[in-house]
């Protein structure tokens, strides 16, 4: 297999652009934010990022942005992922792996249904204020 050139990547982009335009986008823009701090990396956040891309591709979901951020303050349940979807409260998922990422795409993103077993919340403001003491 030869390495893809930038020119080949450009052509692939143009082909994909055509496909994307043909899809029926519901007009709901969701955000998936993967915690990629030291704690997240150690727990496998890169695998999770990869899993989201594969699941979104498998389900042809395009109206979602996938970004990275640092530690969300929930190191004990890394990898963590925040999902922002119109019509739903912001949700932080913890202990996310490839299977949970699949569930988040299929249930939360596509059906507006939380993946309850993995919902966590940020530490409360008073804990943050005291520096976790």
């Amino acid at each position, binding site marked *: 297999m030869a390495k893809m050139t930038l020119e080949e990547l450009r052509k692939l982009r143009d082909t*994909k652009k055509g496909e994307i335009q043909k899809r029926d986008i519901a007009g709901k823009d969701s955000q998936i934010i993967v915690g990629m701090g030291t704690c997240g990396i150690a727990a496998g956040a890169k695998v999770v990022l990869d899993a989201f*891309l594969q699941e979104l591709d498998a389900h042809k979901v395009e109206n979602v942005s996938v970004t990275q951020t640092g530690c969300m303050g929930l190191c004990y349940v890394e990898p963590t992922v925040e999902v922002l979807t119109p019509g739903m409260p912001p949700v932080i998922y913890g202990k996310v792996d490839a299977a949970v990422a699949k569930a988040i795409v299929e249930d939360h993103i596509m059906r507006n249904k939380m993946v309850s077993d993995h919902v966590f919340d940020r530490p409360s403001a008073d804990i943050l204020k005291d520096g976790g003491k």
Partner: protein
Amino acid sequence: MHASLCDFLSDIFQNAVESNAGSIRVNIEENDTQISFLIEDNGKGMSEEVRTRVTDPFYTDGVKHAKRKVGLGIPFLIQAVEAVEGAFSLESEVGQGTKVFFSFPLNHIDCPPMGSMVSTLLSMISFPGAYDLLVYRSLTVADKHDSYEVNRAELEELLGSFESVGALQLLRTYLQSQETALNEIRNRISH
């Protein structure tokens, strides 16, 4: 503790981004027996006092986590390097930038696994921030050598924002192609 060599790379790379570097250069050179990583940035750099403390897990500059009292990235790396008799060095000048080098002997029984190079490069290139990133990756097995270079600015110009799922998927395909072709050296040797 990190699970893979690529995890260490991610961590040190993020330090470079967080140093407000405008330019980051990453070299990943692998051969039969060793893999080495060089991460060089032109960020804010470190004073001598900070440089002597970065190996202390109970020291952090407080930038990433204002309330936290530990900084584990470099201490984790040094611990892993020392466990397998690899190498680590850090050079830094205030206002000039930082250069971190580390290597692991791949045939050491306790050497961590490689991890996914494609996922790692994907997360590095798409990591938020306004910085140039040039990655050079090479593999030498027996007398066969191959390499590729990835330039973040070129890819961003071609693919657009890395927040878009479509752009990230194309980036992944591109990186997978580079890495698969590189690793075909091994197949050529074994046949």
